[in-house]
């Protein structure tokens, strides 16, 4: 939850309520609040923390970060099943 992960804005939704977009994090897709980056366009990259885009980010560094995160298993950690992880820790099956 402490991570901020870069992702690509695939679509922006016009609706009542906070500005929302569909964001792709190297394959994992989530609805993200874009209210704090109102100038963002579809196709641009944003850095996202707990479902909120905090800043825009250039494509090159976004891709480099995403690649590294994937390698390190951080994407799984951020978007994976926390219950499963907690159960594994509880039973001592993780290192």
């Amino acid at each position, binding site marked *: 939850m402490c991570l901020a992960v870069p992702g690509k804005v695939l679509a922006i939704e016009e609706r009542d309520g906070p500005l929302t977009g569909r964001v792709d994090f190297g394959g994992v897709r989530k609805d993200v609040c874009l209210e*704090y980056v109102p100038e963002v366009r579809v196709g641009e990259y944003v850095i996202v*923390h707990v479902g*909120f885009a905090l800043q825009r980010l250039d494509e090159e560094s976004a891709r480099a970060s995403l690649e590294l995160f994937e390698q390190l298993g951080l994407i799984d950690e951020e978007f994976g099943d926390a219950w499963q992880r907690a159960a594994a820790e509880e039973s001592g099956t993780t290192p």
Partner: protein
Amino acid sequence: MRYIDEFNDPDLARRLLAEIHATVTRPWALMEVCGGQTHSIIRHGIDQLLPEQVELIHGPGCPVCVTPLEMIDKALEIASRPGVIFCSFGDMLRVPGTDRDLFRVKGAGGDVRVVYSPLDALDVARQNPDRQVVFFGIGFETTAPANAMAVHQARRLGVRNFGLLVSHVRVPPAVEAIMTAPSCRVQGFLAAGHVCSVMGVAEYPELARRHRVPIVVTGFEPLDILEGVRRAVHQLERGEHRVENAYARVVRDEGNPAALHMIEEVFEVTDRAWRGIGMIPASGWRLSEAFREYDAEHRFDVGGIRTEESAACRSGEVLQGLIKPVECEAFGTACTPRTPLGATMVSSEGACAAYHLYRRLGSPKEMNPVG
């Protein structure tokens, strides 16, 4: 140099390291504030690649770790009540309260749900109008805009069965507390980039000047950390103490104005106890008067809960950089991720957990888990 090949740009890593080795002439102690940075440092063995003179002291920047035990116990109490749906980030599930954790509360029949975003918790409230839905709003400045938005939306939409259990903390007062502690050895800081992406850097020049410490804003990827160390060491060797932004691709000096505005509207500064460390003046946020009715602490009357930390746990010293996790007698014996005595052994950003994962048996290389 053993681990450099795992970096995403090994050549750049070598260059940065070479420059740090060439610059340093005497011992320096730097503190990385953010738990994500600590995790990255231990995982990649960055502390072992640096010259011996450069010591990295691990700071208190893990929100899961510093959420006070009392607040965890309040969360557990609220989550156990019938009719309540308790929503939380996944990281909080195994943080030990006095006698259990959220994982156990769920096992005992409590309706505990993990959400990705605080707005998901608000949706749960809208879908369950006959239940009380409480979101555990913890975190540093990075998380505050999200939690503030959830409460703001709750009011806008008239969702009255939604509440926030707030335990927000702020970095600059913690830096101040660390620098004024009599045992302080810290001579420079790597400031947390994602915190600054929201807050900007305005709060730091004052701290840098008064305590005569360089403060370098940086990210938590290995190369970002190396670049942060390089700049901090460079300043120290020249007797300088400025604020530098080494993470400009994410951090603008002014931060995020829209997010800052929302934080200001929804929260107000308050004194906050940090787990293991104690009270730090003006180091937290709580809901402001106008949003007080959404404060779960008021709604559920849990104000009377008082608790005491396990005497064996030295996480307070770990969080202030006074000892390394392996110096704690309980480390790896009485205290493991399976049987954590302190929160620093739980969260993936906690220093004790990072050491346990990567440093338990000798070299980090051997301990590198897959994935």
